[in-house]
């Protein structure tokens, strides 16, 4: 396992730094090629999103100069970049990849987008051939871990901000938001944000009413919506399924009679009021009507905070899953590791060689230094030549799924099993894995 990872994310680097490192999609394939051309890097891929740039590699010796790659590639000096970078190796790199894919490292923990982005990066790198056996294994596992985290914890089930809580509530009422209409009463930053979220989830059109008509027009233009004169509010409000209201009015502007009127015109189809005004715009009397669902700022706030608490608990659960998965992955890699086999194979042959030389010495008496050297060179040469193909095969096999089979065959052919067990025995963990396979 010689994974190495370097990167910046929303926690380690400001937006300005991330912007300079961000790699546009079109340049990603070339970038992956450059990466694998860098000395010491066998496989590599790059995840570049608005919140992070991560370079994940498998290296020949476990200590490739990834910082150097970033400096060269982005023409940045060490001072500019290094303070923002984090670097992980081996197990820690695996853990980081798992956490990123499972959205535990995201700005909004649990958001679903990141997994898709990682999958795209993986597909791109695979297409140019910069991801092969080792990274392939790592990411295939990472996707499975992400799926597991998603299905076994509630990390992904709820999103955090007020706007997205509003969207979730709207979905609880309407199912899909496709084709639903949104009415903004009182143009403000917060209602604009909520509207943006709702539109992103498929809402069809937006109406805006504001005391100052010009501001209504301005906001409506942003969404390709329609500005409504404030006087016409009660006559047109029933066209909306979702009403976001945030006027500065000192009294409720939606009262029970308005609600009844809307429902009658809508044939009782439900309406969702997101009331972010203080004091409230929707009277409690109106909120009691069947078919009117009104959430004020406190209700929304409460939903948000309960989400955060829930989510912290769930994130802990998810971290535990990741830890166990990292261990599993590591254990599996150990069995796939060909190095011990190669070493014991070499040891085995060296023992034979020494024994044979000793036998010759015994039969022929002392050799002259020249003879000694010739025998030494001859025997070594034979062994090296003979071993060349098996060792290369083992090394290639290590990158493929058949590794275990090949290792097994080699061990059996050369009767390496017992020796290996001796050397492995002191480590109970390893032994358990060894016997399982």
């Amino acid at each position, binding site marked *: 396992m010689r994974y190495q990872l370097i990167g910046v994310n929303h926690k380690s680097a400001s937006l300005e730094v991330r912007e300079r490192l961000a790699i546009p999609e079109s340049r990603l394939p070339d970038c992956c090629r450059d990466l694998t051309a860098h000395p010491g890097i066998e496989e590599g891929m790059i995840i570049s999103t608005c919140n992070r740039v991560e370079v994940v590699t498998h290296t020949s010796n476990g200590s490739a100069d990834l910082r150097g790659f970033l400096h060269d590639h982005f023409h940045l000096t060490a001072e500019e970049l290094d303070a923002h970078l984090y670097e992980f190796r081996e197990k820690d790199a695996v853990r980081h990849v798992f956490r990123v894919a499972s959205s535990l490292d995201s700005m909004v923990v649990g958001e679903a987008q990141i997994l898709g982005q990682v999958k795209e990066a993986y597909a791109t790198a695979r297409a140019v051939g910069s991801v092969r056996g080792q990274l392939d294994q790592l990411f295939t596992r990472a996707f499975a871990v992400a799926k597991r985290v998603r299905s076994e914890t509630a990390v992904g089930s*709820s999103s955090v901000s007020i706007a997205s809580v509003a969207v979730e509530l709207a*979905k*609880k009422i309407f*199912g899909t938001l496709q084709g639903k209409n949104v009415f903004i009463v009182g143009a403000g930053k917060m209602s604009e944000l909520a509207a943006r979220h709702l539109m992103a989830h498929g809402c069809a059109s937006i109406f805006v009413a504001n005391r100052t008509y010009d501001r209504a027009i301005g906001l409506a233009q942003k969404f390709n919506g329609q500005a409504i004169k404030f006087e016409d509010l009660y006559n047109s409000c029933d066209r909306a399924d979702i009403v976001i209201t945030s006027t500065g009015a000192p009294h409720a502007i939606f009262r029970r009679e308005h609600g009844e009127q809307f429902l009658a015109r809508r044939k*009782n189809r*439900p309406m969702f009021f997101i009331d972010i005004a203080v004091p409230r715009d929707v009277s409690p009397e109106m909120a009691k009507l*069947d078919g009117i*669902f009104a959430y004020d700022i406190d209700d929304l706030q409460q939903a948000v905070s309960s*989400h955060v608490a829930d989510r912290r608990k769930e994130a802990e659960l998810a971290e535990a899953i990741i830890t166990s998965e990292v261990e599993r992955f590591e254990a599996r890699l150990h069995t796939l590791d060909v190095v011990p086999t190669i070493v014991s194979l070499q040891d085995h042959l060296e023992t034979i060689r020494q024994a044979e030389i000793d036998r010759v010495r015994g039969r022929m008496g002392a050799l002259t230094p020249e003879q000694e050297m010739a025998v030494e060179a001859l025997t070594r040469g034979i062994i090296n030549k003979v071993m060349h193909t098996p060792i290369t095969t083992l090394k290639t096999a290590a990158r493929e799924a058949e590794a275990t089979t090949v290792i097994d065959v080699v061990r059996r052919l050369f009767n390496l099993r017992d020796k290996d067990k001796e050397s492995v025995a002191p480590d109970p963990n390893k032994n358990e894995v060894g016997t399982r396979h």
Partner: protein
Amino acid sequence: MALLWLRFALACYFIGLIYAFFALTRTSDLFSRIALHAASMGMIFHFVSLVELFLSGHVVWASVHNGESLLAFFSMTFFMIIYAVYKTTSPGVVVFPIVFFLTFVAAVDEQPVLLTSFVQHKGWLIAHIILIFTGYAALVLSFGASLLYLLQERRLKAKKPSSLISFLPALEVIDQIGYRSLLLGFPFMTLGLITGSIVAMSTYGHIDFADPKILLSVLMWVVYMVMVFTRWNSGWRGRRAAVLATFAFVAAIVAWAANYFSAIHRFAAS
């Protein structure tokens, strides 16, 4: 044999019944999957049981118990259709207990009472049975949906944070399930009553409106029509729709129970 298969089906539905009780208090993906598989298994056994009945040659569906079995099967079919379209098992909360009860009643009796053989138009009779049971099954589903609607509406109104994470589908989805079941069931129910009248006419020569079965059936149909009309005309849903649905459902049960004391809609040979 048919009875044996039916009992297997009953065992499977029992799992669904347990699910129905648990689903009200907690959400479990695993459990709803188990319930779904159990229900599918149950339907297979149930289907085998019905096919065997059919192959036995008589119109034995028209016995009380086999009728209940058929109704249970249709209800499950509706449930599965809804699952296929909306990917939700939550109507099971209401449907599973009803199906279990119907299957249970059908499965305990060794000797189902057969329909009197004096009915002359067997084709009309079969049509009547199938149509009316499809109507009943739709009514069961829409009754279930209207209860779920109430539940979900209350959760949303309570504004408890937990209401966000609930096993119920969205309010409008529940509403659609209910409304579509209702719309679909209405023509079946209507045609079922018409074919029933035809059978009665051809058997007795007249229709006795004072007979409890006929009276209750007509009453149920009227409530059903009122439901469809209020929904279509003024979009009644939620509490008012639930009251109507309950009323229609009770009327349906009473109309069914009337089989046991109606003079003309009897199953027992007399």
